[in-house]
């Protein structure tokens, strides 16, 4: 299949929870393994998935700095969407994943990047939450807005909102 014949898969990732992030990346890697051209747009809580795991998130303004401290994010810190039970549920989920040899979210993200999946943060969410380019993990595409996303979506065979 040539580049021009590849079917597009577009995934909007609005959620920042571990289970939703896993679903998004499992679909993305599967799409890529089927020869699809996959783009993922991270907006609002989805940005938490792309935040770097180490170091501190620099931002301007007291409210944003406080917010990024309370809402630190990063693939290793995400919680499951239900039964988190102050972290116990998330810990159990991670244990279960290890038991069945399921790749961790971090491994899935790396896999997706190696397979050519594009990870794109939303400009407005970045401005709102005070995240700059250096707050993200490496290998992220440059920021984009809603018009760019919708133009991709209208050309996509499959568009998903997670």
């Amino acid at each position, binding site marked *: 299949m040539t580049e021009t014949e590849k079917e597009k898969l577009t995934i909007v990732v609005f959620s920042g929870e571990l289970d939703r992030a896993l679903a998004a990346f*499992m679909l993305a890697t599967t799409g890529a*393994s*089927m*020869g699809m051209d996959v783009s993922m747009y991270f907006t609002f809580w989805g940005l938490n998935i792309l935040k770097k795991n180490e170091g501190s998130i620099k931002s301007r303004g007291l409210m944003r700095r406080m917010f990024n401290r309370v809402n630190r994010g990063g693939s290793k810190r995400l919680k499951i969407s239900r039964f988190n039970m102050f972290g116990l549920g998330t810990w159990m989920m991670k244990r279960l994943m290890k038991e069945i*040899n*399921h790749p961790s979210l971090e491994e899935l993200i790396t896999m997706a990047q190696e397979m050519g999946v594009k990870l794109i943060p939303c400009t407005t969410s970045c401005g709102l939450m005070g995240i700059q380019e250096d707050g993200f993990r490496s290998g992220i595409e440059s920021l984009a807005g809603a018009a760019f996303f919708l133009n991709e979506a209208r050309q996509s065979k499959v568009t998903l909102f997670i």
Partner: protein
Amino acid sequence: MKADESLDCVGLYCPMPIVKTAEKIKQLKPGDVLEVLADDKGIKKDMPAWCEATGHECMGMEEAEGEIKVYVKKTHD
């Protein structure tokens, strides 16, 4: 069924068998047959679907004692 290469995905859940198949297929020549071993029952539907999407040929499946063998023929580069 005879195969040119084998890929062991026993113990791996969806989508890993498919992701690994896609990776391994790149290393084969058109005409080669890949034998994929898995125990996740989802592969019975997943592999034919992957073949439909990629154009490779799903040659058949054998199931014995919880282990499923799927044969995929690479049809193009």
